[in-house]
């Protein structure tokens, strides 16, 4: 596999080398990239546009898009969809032979692995790949673009300071002991509605022994479930809910800056973190532009732009806002990053899912 791939790349490389001798050499090729990259840029410019299907909020993604446009003069169709919609759309369009997306960029790591398994994603040897850990790249098809720890958020006016959970164990204890006082006032992700919600619940289940205790106490406290972190923020800020857990931490830090009511806490004994993953699609309408965009996302500049909008970067050696050191400090060094690997596809096992949801629903009804 590897030998064949390197052969193909080598062939492409030499073809591009001979091709580029007559054109103006390597104009706009980022430092450290192979010289034949100018060819990719030229083809991408000829394609003229790139289409992104993503679950990333436009507020986080737009600066990246603007910077890309400025760098290459290529138009970007930014299609903001939910995690399941990104997935469903890539599948249906692939089946119809009318692929619309060049890049699929989503927080549902497991769904992206299924797309890879179904042969809907293309392989690409990104020149940026070397800057990323092995646990972030799967078969040159799925690339982790960020590392995002989950957090607990709470309403500072309504939660007694001594009740603020500092660890996962604190959270379980809080719900078990003070569930009555917090009745109907605790929120979390809905694993039924949200792909990322399910991924986080599975991760907790696999990495902690207290997951079902937490779920039962949550259900007994008449906990409410939501499909997005933003919806939970709204409820906590308004005081409808007092505590929410498994909220996307990078967003939470942003909200803490914006609102004096929001408190953020990362569990120091165990904090899970997911990677927002990106891929180029097979038979993409603008294959070169898609690859160019992926590289741009992974580049030092792209990662810094994302970090600036609260999406922590993954790139090795990155220094700046939300770098590895800062994230490590926040999470007490006990961050469990979900690796981009085949095991994630196991989350799609129907038996595993139906068993999980049976116990989950019982817990939510307070029958645990």
């Amino acid at each position, binding site marked *: 596999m590897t030998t064949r791939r390197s052969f193909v790349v080598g062939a492409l490389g030499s073809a591009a080398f001979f091709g580029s001798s007559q054109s103006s050499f390597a104009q706009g090729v980022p430092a450290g990239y192979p010289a034949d990259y100018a060819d990719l840029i030229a083809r991408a410019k000829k394609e003229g546009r790139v289409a992104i299907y993503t*679950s990333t*909020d*436009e*507020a986080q993604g*737009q600066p990246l898009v603007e910077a890309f446009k400025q760098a290459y003069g290529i138009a970007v*169709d*930014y*299609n*903001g*969809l939910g*995690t*399941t*919609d990104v*997935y*469903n759309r890539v*599948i*249906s*369009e692939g*089946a*119809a032979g*009318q692929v*619309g997306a060049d890049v699929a960029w989503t927080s549902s790591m*497991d*769904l992206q692995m299924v797309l890879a398994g179904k042969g809907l994603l293309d392989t690409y040897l990104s020149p940026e790949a070397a800057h990323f850990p092995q646990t972030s790249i799967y078969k040159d098809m799925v690339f982790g673009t960020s590392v995002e720890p989950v957090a607990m958020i709470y*309403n500072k*006016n*309504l939660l007694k300071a001594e009740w603020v959970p500092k660890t996962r164990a604190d959270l379980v204890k809080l719900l078990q002991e003070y569930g009555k006082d917090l009745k*109907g006032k605790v*929120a979390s992700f*809905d694993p*039924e*509605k*949200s*792909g990322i919600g*399910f991924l986080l619940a599975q991760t907790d289940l696999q990495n902690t022994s207290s997951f079902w205790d937490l779920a039962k106490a949550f259900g007994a406290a008449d906990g*409410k*479930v*939501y*499909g*997005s*972190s*933003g*919806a*939970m*923020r*709204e409820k906590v*800020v*308004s*005081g*409808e809910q007092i505590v929410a857990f498994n909220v996307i931490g990078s967003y939470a830090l942003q909200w803490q800056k*914006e*609102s004096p*009511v929001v408190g953020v806490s990362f569990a120091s004994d165990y904090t899970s973190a997911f990677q927002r993953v990106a891929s180029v699609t097979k038979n993409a309408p603008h294959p070169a532009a898609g690859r160019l965009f992926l590289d741009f996302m992974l580049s030092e500049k792209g990662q810094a732009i994302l970090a600036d909008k609260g999406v922590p970067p993954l790139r090795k050696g990155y220094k700046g806002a939300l770098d590895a050191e800062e994230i490590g400090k926040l999470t007490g060094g006990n961050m469990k990053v979900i690796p981009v690997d085949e095991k994630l596809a196991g*989350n*799609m096992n*129907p038996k595993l*899912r139906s068993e999980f*949801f049976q116990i989950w629903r019982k817990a*939510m*009804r307070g029958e645990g």
Partner: protein
Amino acid sequence: MSAAGGLARRSEGQGYRVAVIAALVLVVMTPVGLILYQSFLDAPFFDKTARMSLEAYDYVLTDPDFWTALGTTALFAVGLVAVAVPLGAMLAFLLSRTDLVGKRWLEPVALVPMFLSSIVLAFGYTVAVGPSGFVSLWMKETFGIKPWSIYSLGGMILIGGLSHVPNVYLYVSSAMRSLPSDLEEAARASGASIWRVSLDVTLPMVLPSLIFAAALNLLLGFETFGIPLVLGDPSGIVVLTTYIYKVNGIFGTPTYHVMAVVAVALILITLPLVYFQRLLLRNSRRYAAVGGKGARATPLRLGPSGQVIAWSLIALWLVVSVALPIGGITVRAFVDAWGEGVRLRDHLTLAHFAHVFDTPSLFRGIINTLLLAVIGGAFAVAIYLAVGLAGHRNKGPSGALLDYMVLLPRALPGIIIGLAFFWVFLFVPFLTPLRPTLVSLFVAYTVVGLSYGLRIIQATLLQVAPELEESSRTTGASPMRTWRDTVIPIIRPGLVGAWSLIMIVFLREYATGVYLMGVGTEVVGTLMVSLLTSGSMDQIAALAFLSILFTALGLGFALRLGARIHD
């Protein structure tokens, strides 16, 4: 008139009918057939591994959650009708048959709840009367109690019912306005009170429109998505539409077959309703009120005490169903935080609007929505009129077929119709270039609005007494000519009313675009749904506020230009 000539003219009308009905069957049955076919497979129909199977039926029918959702849905729909129909009928009577003070400006205001997609409405109520809403907090401070909960089935029914009052109102008032006032005046002259007149004289004459309104609102209740999603779902109150929505997540793969089974279940529930409706209206002649002798309506006088009572009721309804949700949305659109312990004054901002105008997709969404509503709405009404005439005075089997074709899509939630058309535009070769254009949304919207628009047009057509058409035919006019020169001029005010209704329907639609919408075809309603999945509440509030504003401006403009909602 020779026998041969008469035959030729009859066949002219017949040919028209056949052509229209055939086209309608094609447009409606393609998505419905696709859904039916999909329900009998064990995977998405485009998946090569898909086999014929009853697996999906087995899953749904043995799932206790499905039956719970079905029961909750039925309660919700019946409750919604019980709230909306009496209030809507009363409102229609007061605004169209009496001399109520200020009714000219009251009418556009009374339609406002219709401008809002139910997601936004639910959202507005949350900010106003939710557990931390400004009205709730004020109640708590002033009286020490907050006597309601909107996160309950009762709360959902009340909110759903109140938001559907304008639907009933439009149907019923459309019929009421074409009534002559001689019967009501006679009843008044013989000493009946105004309320008695409304119940015993006016109401029976508009019975068909009331039945239509009730039946259609029942169907709407079955497919309401936004209110249960925002108000019920976090607490575990699930209806069929939210059940469909969650099934995908539970399996973790596209479970189009399971979604299709639930859609088929919805069709099976609602078809008998359609049959019942047709039965009630078999003898449509009984309801013809505009006879050969024309009579202009003169409004009934309410008198001072009548004015006061009527105004109090309307004011209460307006506060609850217009001021509260719009107030909630307005507050939310201009602040970045709200609720307990938050001083709104400290959080005022215009940033949400700046963001909407800076973000290309959101800005495009606003433009597209306006195009689709105003221009698309006009085209849709023309199509509905063409269909309406094909079914007009058509008592044969083709008329029955037409009725079912019209109501079939109404039985399906917009999200399912949108999904089916997404498949159609994706897999039918000569249609694929249309998918990234507004045409794809227009087609789906037209099908979704079909029964709404057609019932308005049919209700108006029914008011034209047959003798008018018969006299035209006996003087030698062809059916086409009769329609052009006799029927259409009479119902023209009804057509303008239908246009404004369809415009509103298209403006507020959100579920249909969920699967169809793509880059370049963004619409405001669906953008709000996708923003909800990413949790961008700030932008949702700003978009909601803008869409209310634009609709209000558009309506004001239309009124000024003389295109009144009714004549």
